[in-house]
């Protein structure tokens, strides 16, 4: 009985504590909203991403995690930027004033003006429109590569960590081989063999990025495997597949989500590098990396050719890094065994 009453007391205090922190943060957000509308949007975005992440990871501490995330201004800024970039990518035809491929040679190398907000390139194409359309390519590659590699890498990591033995040996040697090469060299070789093109870039990047997840997940599985709840499931004589799906996978998801967010930034910069070297997206298509390359001869006479695509790459990478860092911080503090 005393145990019960004691636990009730603890629950009560927890509840009141939660209420109090809730009130405080509400007051804070109230003030913020009065200050600027922008910050309010930030809060909404924070709640949204927090909710999505929380659902993926399935934890009751969602509320606390969302609060944690919203407190992190950089993370909220990152999410806002990502939302903005996604908007650009989805509504590129509406946002851009010109056709990104339309050439007006007589108006080449113009500086920013009302008609051409970011100026024109050497062939008289609108740089603003090209930058906007480039968002589609970069985000597309980032999302596709990260989706493919995180699923494949996580599955391999769980299997090799849980099964161990020969399978583990083979997978980990595969990981070692891929990681032994400098990433860019390996991607160049693959992209060179396959030729340029959107899906070839996705494939080349995927083939170089999967080991990152496999390593992370395998390490987590090795420690999860020794946890009492996994041993308890084995004592229940649950099948290995069941244990991996119900007990191992949910406890790895947090870190995979965080790593995936940070990886998007990495992949985008990587894809731009490939295009810059001429092995990425073929020529006329608007892509930030190839825009940089085309602008190099005019670096001194017309720096806006390289400035704007470079700025976009930087902003995108920063946005995903901020969001990823924020996600990691808010997931780390809350979850039991590991985020």
């Amino acid at each position: 009985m005393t145990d019960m009453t004691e636990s009730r007391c603890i629950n009560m205090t927890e509840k009141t504590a939660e209420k109090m922190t809730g009130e405080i943060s509400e007051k804070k957000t109230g003030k913020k909203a009065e200050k600027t509308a922008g910050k309010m949007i930030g809060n909404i975005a924070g709640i949204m991403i927090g909710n999505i992440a929380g659902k993926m990871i399935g934890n009751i501490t969602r509320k606390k995690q969302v609060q944690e995330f919203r407190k992190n201004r950089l993370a909220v800024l990152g999410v806002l930027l990502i939302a903005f970039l996604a908007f650009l990518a989805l509504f590129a035809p509406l946002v851009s004033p010109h056709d990104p491929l339309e050439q007006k040679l007589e108006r080449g190398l113009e500086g920013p003006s009302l008609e051409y907000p970011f100026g024109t390139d050497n062939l008289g194409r609108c740089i603003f429109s090209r930058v906007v359309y480039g968002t589609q390519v970069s985000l597309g590659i980032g999302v596709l590569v990260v989706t493919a590699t995180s699923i494949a890498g996580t599955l391999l990591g769980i299997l090799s960590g849980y099964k161990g033995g020969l399978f583990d040996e083979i997978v980990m040697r595969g990981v070692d081989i891929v990681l032994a090469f400098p990433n860019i060299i390996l991607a160049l070789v693959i992209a060179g063999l396959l030729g340029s093109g959107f899906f070839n870039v996705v494939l080349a990047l995927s083939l170089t990025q999967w080991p990152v997840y496999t390593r992370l997940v395998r390490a987590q599985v090795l420690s999860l495997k020794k946890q009492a709840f996994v041993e308890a499931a084995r004592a229940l004589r649950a099948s290995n597949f069941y244990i991996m799906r119900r007990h191992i996978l949910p406890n790895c998801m947090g870190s995979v989500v965080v790593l995936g967010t940070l990886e998007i930034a990495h992949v985008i910069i990587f894809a731009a590098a490939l295009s810059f070297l001429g092995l990425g997206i073929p020529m006329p298509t608007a892509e930030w990396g190839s825009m940089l390359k085309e602008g190099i001869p005019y670096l001194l006479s017309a720096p806006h050719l390289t400035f704007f695509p470079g700025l976009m790459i930087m902003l995108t990478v920063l946005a995903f890094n901020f969001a990823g860092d924020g996600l990691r911080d808010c997931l780390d503090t809350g979850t039991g065994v590991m985020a």
Partner: protein
Amino acid sequence: MTLLKVENLKKYYSSGLFRRQVNRAVDGVSFELERGKTLGLVGKSGCGKSTLGRTVLRLLEPTAGKVFFEDREISGLRGRELKKLGTEMQIIFQHPEASLNPKMRIYDCIAEPLRIHGLCGKEAEKTRVLELIGGVALDEELLFRYPRELSGGQLQRVVIARILGLKPKFIVADEPTSMLDPLVQAQILTLLKKLQQDCGISFLFISHDPAVVEWMSDEVAVMEGGKIVEFH
């Protein structure tokens, strides 16, 4: 009537790349356990108590020796028969906060064994879970929480409720109360003893605390260096 008979059970670990080093964690242990009785197992840490408990359950494969459960040798069981063994022999671990999946609600933790073994349908599941959590004197309100929101004593009760759903005949209790404070410890021990009287469960009760073992057990075995050196 004998429920469990262990004959000359051995569990060795070998290590070392050039010179084989053999660690005899359990080195030829034999004992018998009757239905509804408790065998206490005491010994210093590292003497092989926990390894013995796990080897008896076949959570670890024995190096040699035989385990008979209800006059049936269990070391050769596979597939469906091994799965059924999961409903008959169970284990309670030392760390209650690590014994439950942090991503599962208490309700699912308790319902999980029922689902794995298909012991009751969707409808009956809810009543059964309520019955089980009532059986260990916990509030129904806790069912929709996550393990990290409960105290150690509450968690250990959930662990017990979850196992009881299977109606096991034999439970290995591996220092079930060593991580709890004395008051809660006494409550959990009383609960275990009550369950034993009500359901006729046999226990292998592992502990390093002689007082606890003395109170719980009908017979006490003392282990040292992988061997049982004394019965009393």
